[in-house]
């Protein structure tokens, strides 16, 4: 079997936060490779740097040192505006609290990232309807987030994340605010995205059940990354 190409390549990544006069190292000399189509879970105690690493990979935070290459692009070298354009095309975000815009319908929320593309209204509609069909919410496209359950909202968020067909999906505690059944639905959906659509997912989670859906689990502790091989993938 051919080895899949590396889509995320992290080298010597360091990040420090300043609290008052004190410098707190959050990530220390991280090296990490993620293959295309891989589903990676990042685990670790609170404050271990999981979300910081995810934010750096997603291009919404800046590293102090080191390199992050995604799909061949060195994102640490990108300026703020270039980074915004890169995010729009290459990263899909799934958050713990869904982060949908409450005054927009499910359709409009999913359409949001497409507004930054040159697609026509009709093309946008096709993409949005396809994405909502993938998450089984085509019949709820005119509903506002407040009219949907937590699980449904998270599925809308996933549709928003995949609608631009991004290079990677980053998920920060995607099941953290869901009941068991809804969490299972969301995790199954994420598995489908990997298996059927070949998406690459990096997921931060505290939930071992969620982590076990991943191909690979990495543990972060005090900013240091340790491999935790997943059995039987």
């Amino acid at each position, binding site marked *: 079997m051919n080895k899949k190409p590396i889509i995320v390549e992290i080298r010597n990544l360091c990040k420090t936060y300043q609290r008052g006069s004190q410098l707190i190292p959050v990530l220390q000399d991280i090296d990490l490779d993620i293959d295309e189509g891989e589903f990676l879970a990042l685990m670790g105690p609170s404050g271990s740097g999981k979300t910081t690493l995810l934010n750096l990979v997603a291009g919404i935070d800046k590293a102090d040192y080191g390199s992050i290459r995604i799909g061949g692009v060195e994102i640490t070298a990108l300026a703020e505006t270039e980074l915004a354009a890169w995010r729009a095309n290459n990263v899909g975000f799934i958050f713990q609290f869904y982060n949908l815009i409450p005054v*927009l319908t499910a359709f409009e929320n999913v359409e949001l990232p497409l507004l930054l593309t040159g697609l026509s209204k009709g093309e946008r509609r096709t993409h949005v309807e396809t994405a909502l069909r993938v998450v089984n919410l085509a019949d709820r496209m005119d509903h506002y987030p407040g009219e949907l359950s937590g699980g449904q909202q998270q599925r809308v968020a996933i549709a928003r994340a995949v609608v631009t067909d991004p290079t990677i999906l980053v998920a920060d505690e995607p099941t953290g605010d869901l009941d068991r059944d809804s969490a299972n639905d969301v995790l199954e959906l994420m598995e489908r995205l990997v298996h059927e659509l070949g998406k690459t997912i990096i997921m931060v989670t505290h939930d071992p059940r969620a982590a076990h859906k991943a191909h690979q689990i990495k543990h972060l502790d005090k900013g240091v990354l340790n491999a935790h091989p997943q059995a039987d993938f």
Partner: protein
Amino acid sequence: MHILKLIFKNSFRHKLRTFLTILGVTVAILAFGLLRTVVSAWYAGVEASSATRLVTRNAVSLVFPLPLSYKEKIRQIEGVKGVSYGTWFGGIYIDEKNFFANYSMEPRTYLAMYPEIIIPDDQWNVFLRDRKGAAAGKKLAERFGWKIGDVITLKGTIFPGNWDFVLDAIYKGRDDTVDETAFFFHWDYLNETLKKAGRSWTDKVGWFLIEIEDPDIAAEVSLRIDKNFKNSLAETLTETEKAFQLSFISMTEAIVIAIRLVSFVIIFIIMAVVANTMAMTARERIGEYAIFKTLGFRSFHIAGLILGESLFVTMLGAVLGILLTFPAAALFGKELSQYFPIFNVERETIVLDIIAALVVAFVAALFPAWRAIHIRIADGLRRVG
């Protein structure tokens, strides 16, 4: 889904707050518009002045007369096209609170210089023939319910006694910048009556009104006239009609400045109110702006959302305020017609209203937009949930 739709939906997320902000802007723009109209009304006489009309009065003060004999001497001065004259009467109609401008003048020559005053031919002919005849502006006649043929009695203050006039004409203005609240009558009637009573103002006038051939020679002609009467018993002071009107306003300049200041204070206050609303709005939505930025929206998109909302709310209030200014000004104008004969909402006032609203919207959005643009995405996302 368009950004404009999102701006519209965002604007009404807190309906009560938006309603109160719009109401605040409406009241502020209404107050601003009315105060600016008061200032315009103050200068209405100045604005209505013609550049080809000069006024010659006694150099000491307007309360001192000039001999009628100056008329012919003035007429002979180079650049003078026509001369007329008038005398302030200052009569009271029934009660002092019924104040209106009333003066005597020589109608043929005087009104020839005021083409903006329109009197129907039949009324004009009667007025010219009737020594005791008088003409009143349309608004003044309406105010007191006067009709053609009514006898109007004014109680003299400068010239004591009860003076009866027959209302022979009611004039209209050529446009809405013309004062329609004045009352005038024949100078001859005043003069003859004073003569009979042996009073000191006989054959004297309060001012000469002079028409010149070219507005560019106003200063030269004024100098020539005043030079002509230098070292006489009644030296003259000649100025343009505009300067003459301004000399009255300068006495009340402090009030006008105060009104102007108050109008800008109102705008400043509403700016603070809208800025407060926008600051609250932006603070509540910092998480959402972080989401937009996460999705790849740029700083100008975020600034556009905030500025758009500020503009929408402010302009909605401003449009309502402007629309209300017209009926409010009409009501004010009617109630205060004795103080402000012309009380029209000028185009300049509307432009100022719009500029003020735009400035308010822009300034109010400035800090919230700056804050939303500069917040780190990771920090903004922590505010969600």
